[in-house]
């Protein structure tokens, strides 16, 4: 910010003239420069990884990726190995990719809906103790995921019993039905953050709007569907994207609840397995990191216009 302020310091405020126009152009130029510098800084490590993933294994281990420019050597071998494998389990990556999608889609939808319902209730349905319910859900954000794995797993595999009486049976899921466990787990873990984020946006919606709708006789269901959801679309998109990324890149939950075979395990599990027993195959990890990056990036790019809808949400703010 200091560069910006020093550039404009010379210009007296309030002058809407040629000077003003110059100022505007200057600030936008310094701003652009700052933006470019940050973008370059932020991208360099990723770019280095990308170049590395295209270099032969012995080169990755002995020289820096920038030597590529003086001695360009490109190979697709790393990608070939990651995608199609050289082992008996070849050609399975496609299978793990399908698993990743099957795991991720419902694991984003469920928390999105449940968190939106809960956030709406906490923001706009007046009932006693709602502050405390909200604070409680908020505080649950800090429960470490690792601590939930054992109880949740025993909930699936042993059911619930109190003092020796079985209240809920074990799930005993086999085959593709195991995906349901993963959805369940991801939904549980996503709710506190989801409720917090969405509540924050929803509670900022103008109260008069809600009041007006209710005076017109709209039920909560109608208000929620017609009024609130469109207005908080950017927040939904934001939470949706982060939940998508979280689930897509998750290893811990998948390892426990989806297992490690092509039947139900996602790509992250497969990539971790390919690192080799003694972890020496990290040229594959560089390629693997890029393979798993493609889909989240596509999702982000296609969702970007929803973020801009924020303009719409803001315009109704009084």
């Amino acid at each position, binding site marked *: 910010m200091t560069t910006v302020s020093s550039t404009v310091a010379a210009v007296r405020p309030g002058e809407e003239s040629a000077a003003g126009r110059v100022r505007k152009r200057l600030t936008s130029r310094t701003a652009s420069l700052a933006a470019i510098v940050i973008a370059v800084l932020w991208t360099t490590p990723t770019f280095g990884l990308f170049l590395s993933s295209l270099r032969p294994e012995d080169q990755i281990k002995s020289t820096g990726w920038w030597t590529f420019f003086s001695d360009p050597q490109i190979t697709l071998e790393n990608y070939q190995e990651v995608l199609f494998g*050289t082992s008996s389990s070849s050609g399975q990556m496609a299978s793990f990719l399908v698993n990743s999608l099957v795991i991720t889609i419902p694991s984003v939808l469920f928390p999105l809906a449940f968190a939106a319902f809960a956030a709406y209730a906490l923001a706009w349905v007046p009932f006693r103790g709602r502050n405390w319910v909200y604070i409680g859900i908020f505080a649950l954000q800090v429960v470490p995921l690792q601590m939930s794995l054992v109880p949740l797993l025993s909930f699936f595999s042993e059911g619930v019993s109190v003092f020796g009486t079985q209240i809920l049976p074990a799930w005993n899921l086999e085959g593709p039905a195991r995906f349901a466990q993963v959805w369940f787990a991801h939904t549980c873990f996503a709710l506190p953050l989801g409720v917090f984020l969405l509540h924050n946006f929803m509670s900022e919606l103008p109260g008069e709007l809600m009041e007006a709708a209710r005076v017109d006789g709209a039920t909560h269901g109608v208000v929620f569907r017609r009024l609130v959801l469109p207005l908080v679309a950017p927040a939904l998109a934001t939470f949706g994207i982060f939940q998508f990324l979280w689930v897509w890149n998750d290893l811990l939950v998948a390892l426990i609840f989806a297992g490690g075979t092509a039947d139900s395990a996602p790509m992250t599990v497969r990539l971790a397995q390919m690192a080799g027993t003694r*972890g020496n195959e990290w040229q594959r990890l560089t390629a693997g990191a890029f393979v798993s990056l493609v889909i989240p990036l596509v999702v982000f790019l296609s969702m970007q216009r929803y973020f801009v809808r924020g303009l719409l949400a803001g315009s109704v703010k009084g």
Partner: protein
Amino acid sequence: MSLLSRPVRAALIAGSMSLALVATGCGSSDPKAPAADGGDSASAECAPFAQFGKHEGKKVSIYSPIRDKEADLFQETWAPFEKCTGMKITYEGTGEFEAQIQVRTDGGNPPDLAFFPQPGLLERFAKAGKLKPAPAEVKKLTEQNWSADWAKYGTVDGTFYAAPLGASVKSFVWYSPKMFAEKGWTVPTTWDELMTLSNTIAGTGVKPWCAGIESGEATGWPATDWIEDILLRELGPEEYDNWVAHKLPFNDPKVVAAVDKVGSILKNDKFVNGGYGPVKSISSTAFQEGGVPITEGKCALHRQASFYANFWPEGTKVAEDGDVFAFYLPGNDPSKKPVLGAGEFVGAFADRPEVQAVQAYLATGDYANARMKLGTYVSANKGVDIANAQNPIDKLSIEMLQDPNTIFRFDGSDLMPAAVGAGTFWKGMTDWINGKDTKTVLDYIEASWPKS
């Protein structure tokens, strides 16, 4: 039936079929062995597995820290066993074995079998009553195929739980036979010779030793192997056992002396870290890359286990007359050759017949031989035929393991409580490399030993 060793059993089977058919293990298709017809050849293939019974449609799950290509080879090895017994083995390899097996067991969803790389971890599960004792047949096979030293590591409080599976030998120093021949150096057979050699090499301007102990969350383990190897030589096997069992304190003067002895190499700026820099660079060098400078002539000696054969850059010839090879890390007395090693143990969380059949199969020499034929593999199983070894270092390791005079001791950090063996010991040794003095580090590890 299962009591018979492999060659005897093979002969019996051949005899019972009244054919001069040589059963050379599973899935062999020796063109010289005439198969009367399709049915006969199928039963010939399956004959070695007849003793394990039929388990049509049954499933057995295996959980293991072994992944990637090595995992594929496992599956390839037992494919004929699966086919002939009719069962299906689901194998799952994970990089988070130690943590995940705990979670899955606590969550009431353990696998049927698990390959434990640490007897200490096995003991924890056995003591918690989660593991099933091994069936009598597996116990017999183990007694027959493995030395008492090995069988001991699968036994907890007098109950036998787990048969050993694969193995690795840790007491190796890697070197370049070519470089040695060129410079006229010879392989040392005592510690003094080793030090003399190190000084000679240092005199030529090359740092003789290179090392790397960086290994992500397991950083430090290669240094603990160093310490264990020297402790085993300095204290002797009995005192080593006492140290592992914490009957000899971690900061005992004898231990301090042994650690200092390792320090005379690892913390000596004249001797390390060839190709990488000063002493401290050891803790930031990945263990996979620790010995690589040998191939570049920047370092001459690297102490690491037999499996390091897999980490040499592509095209490096591993052989007695090749680019790299290994010699036994010598002690003070060349007549005593204790061997430090490691391996996996097959623990069972279920006792269904099909699970026990897999356990029994994995304890046979047939299994180990079949696995060896497919690729690099070392087992301490006495039933393995050394001719099946895929490379010279495997051969050397198996020779050492099978030698009845060998005193074998398991990697101590794998036997200790994990809080020490996979925690403060690793951490302490990393601090030690980074400059902390021996006594401080050993006091710290001693203090961290869990009080039961």
